[in-house]
C-alpha cells in the first residue's frame, strides 16, 4: 500500500526529467540514487521512531510523562524507542530495494568506499532527522500544543527530498545548518556520486554534533519545566 508513496516520489522526478536534463546538477540516474537514499532514511524513521514521536506530544500534554520519569532508564531513550512499527518493516524492504536498484543501474563511476560512506552517512541522516523532529516536539513542554510545530516538521521534511544544490543564499544556510534537512540524504548522496570532499565531511560532522547537543539540552530544559509545572 505504501508503494503509492514510493511511486509518487519517483514519478515526481520522472515527470520533471521529461522537461529537463539536470536538476540540482544531477541527471535522472543520479537522482534515483538520491531518491533511494532519502526513501531509506524515511522508512527507517517510520519503522523505528514515528509511532513514538506521534504519541510523545500527547504524553507531555496530558501529564502522562510521570510514569516514564519514574523508570530507571533514560526517558528520552525509552520514549523514542518504546514502540516498533512492525507494519512499516515491509516498507523498509521496499525502500532498500529501490536504493539497491538505483545503485545497481547507476552507470557512472563509483567506488566501494564511497558506498560504505553513503550508508554510514545515511545512518547519521536518520539521527539528524530524529533530532530535528525532537526539536519540533520539545516546545510542547511550554506551549501545550505542538501540533503546529509537528505539522511544520512534516512540511519541512520536503526539503530533504530535494537535491541540496537548488538551495541558494540564506535558504541554503537554513537547510544545511539551522534545520539541516539537506544533510540527511543529499550530502551523503554527493559522497557517493562525487567522492569524498573534506568540506562536506567537516560540515556534516560539525552540524550533526551541534544539533545533537542542542536537542539534548532542550530536552533537559523541557523536563525541568515539566517537573516544576506538574503537581
Amino acid at each position, binding site marked *: *500500500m*505504501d508503494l*503509492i*508513496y514510493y511511486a*509518487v516520489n519517483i*514519478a*515526481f522526478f520522472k*515527470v*520533471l526529467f*521529461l*522537461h*529537463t*536534463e*539536470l*536538476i*540540482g546538477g544531477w541527471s535522472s540516474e543520479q537522482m534515483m540514487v538520491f531518491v533511494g537514499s532519502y526513501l531509506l532514511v524515511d522508512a527507517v524513521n517510520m519503522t523505528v521512531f514515528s509511532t513514538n514521536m506521534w504519541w510523545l506530544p500527547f504524553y507531555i500534554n496530558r501529564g502522562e510523562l510521570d510514569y516514564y520519569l519514574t523508570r530507571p532508564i533514560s526517558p528520552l531513550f525509552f520514549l523514542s524507542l518504546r514502540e516498533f512499527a512492525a*507494519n512499516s518493516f515491509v516498507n523498509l524492504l521496499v525502500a532498500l530495494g529501490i536504493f539497491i536498484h538505483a545503485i545497481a543501474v547507476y552507470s557512472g563511476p563509483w567506488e566501494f568506499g564511497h558506498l560504505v560512506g553513503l550508508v554510514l552517512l545515511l545512518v547519521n541522516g536518520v539521527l539528524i532527522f530524529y533530532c530535528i523532529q525532537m526539536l519540533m516536539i520539545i516546545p510542547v513542554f511550554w*506551549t*501545550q*500544543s*505542538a*501540533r*503546529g*510545530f509537528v*505539522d*511544520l516538521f512534516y*512540511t*519541512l521534511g*520536503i*526539503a530533504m527530498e*530535494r537535491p541540496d*544544490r*537548488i*538551495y*541558494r543564499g540564506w*535558504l541554503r544556510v537554513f537547510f544545511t545548518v539551522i534545520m539541516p534537512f539537506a544533510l540527511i540524504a543529499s550530502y551523503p548522496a554527493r559522497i557517493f556520486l562525487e567522492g569524498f570532499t573534506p568540506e562536506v565531511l567537516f560540515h556534516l560532522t560539525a552540524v550533526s554534533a551541534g544539533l545533537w547537543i542542542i536537542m539534548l539540552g532542550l530536552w533537559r530544559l523541557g523536563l525541568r519545566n515539566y517537573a516544576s509545572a506538574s503537581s
Partner: protein
Amino acid sequence: MTWWRFLAAAELRKILAFRADFWVTFIGQALVQLLIARALWQSIFAANETGVMNGFTLQTMTLYYLIVPIGQKILTGENVGFLSREIYDGTFSRYLIYPLSFFQYKATTYLTHSAFYGIQLVLIFSVYNLLTGTTGFTTLVPGILLFLVAAFAYMSIAMIVELLALWADNIWSLMVLVRFFCLFFGGGYVPLTFFPETVQRALVYTPFPYLVSLPVRTTMGLAQTHEIVRGSLVLLLWALLFHLGAQLIWTRGQYKYTGVGI
C-alpha cells in the same frame, strides 16, 4: 437549526486558541512549501535557459506554488485522524449520543477549517497582488467557491477512509497516502501540463484535477470560463458520489463500533 453556527464558532475559537501554534502551522507551512518549490523551479528554469515552460513562467509558477499549499489546507480541513482517532479512543461516541447526524456535525467542523483557510487564501492572494500587481481579483471568487466544493468532495473521500478505522486499527498511513495520491494527480506537486499527454487525457476521467488543479488555476485566472463551468459540474458529481460512499460505509460500519476507550 442554528446549532451549526454555534459549532462553527466554537471550532473557530478552538483553531485560534493556540495562537502561536496556528501561525507557525499556517504561515510556516505555506512559506516552506513555496520556498522549496521556487528553489527547485528556479534551478530547472536556469538549467534550461528558458523563460517559459509548458505555459508557466517562473513568476506564474511561484504564484501556483503559493496557492497550492493553502489550497491543500482548504481541502484537508481538519487534521488526518479527525474521525479515525476519535473512533480509536472512543470520543466518537459523543456524536452518537447527540440528537443530530454525525455527518452534519463533522462536516460543520471540517468545513469551518476549510472556510478559515479560504480567508487566509484571500488575504495572502491580496498581499501578493498588491506587491506584484499581476493578476486581478475577479478570479478570486470563483476560485474560492471551487475550493470549497473541492473541500467537500475531499472531506467525503477522507471520511470513507477514516471510517475504515471501524474495521482496522491503523488508518493514518492510508490517509496520508490518499492525500499524496490526490495531490500528485491533482497537480499539487508538478502542474498537470508537465504530465505526459496520455496521462493528462486519462486524468480528466478521475476526480483529481478538479480537486486541486482546477481551483488553483481558476484562482490564478488561467482557466477558461467553459472549463470552470464544466469542471464545477463534474466536481459536484464526484462530491455527491463520495458522499454516498461515506454514507454507505457508515451504514455498514456502525455495527462494528464498540466505543472502546470509554
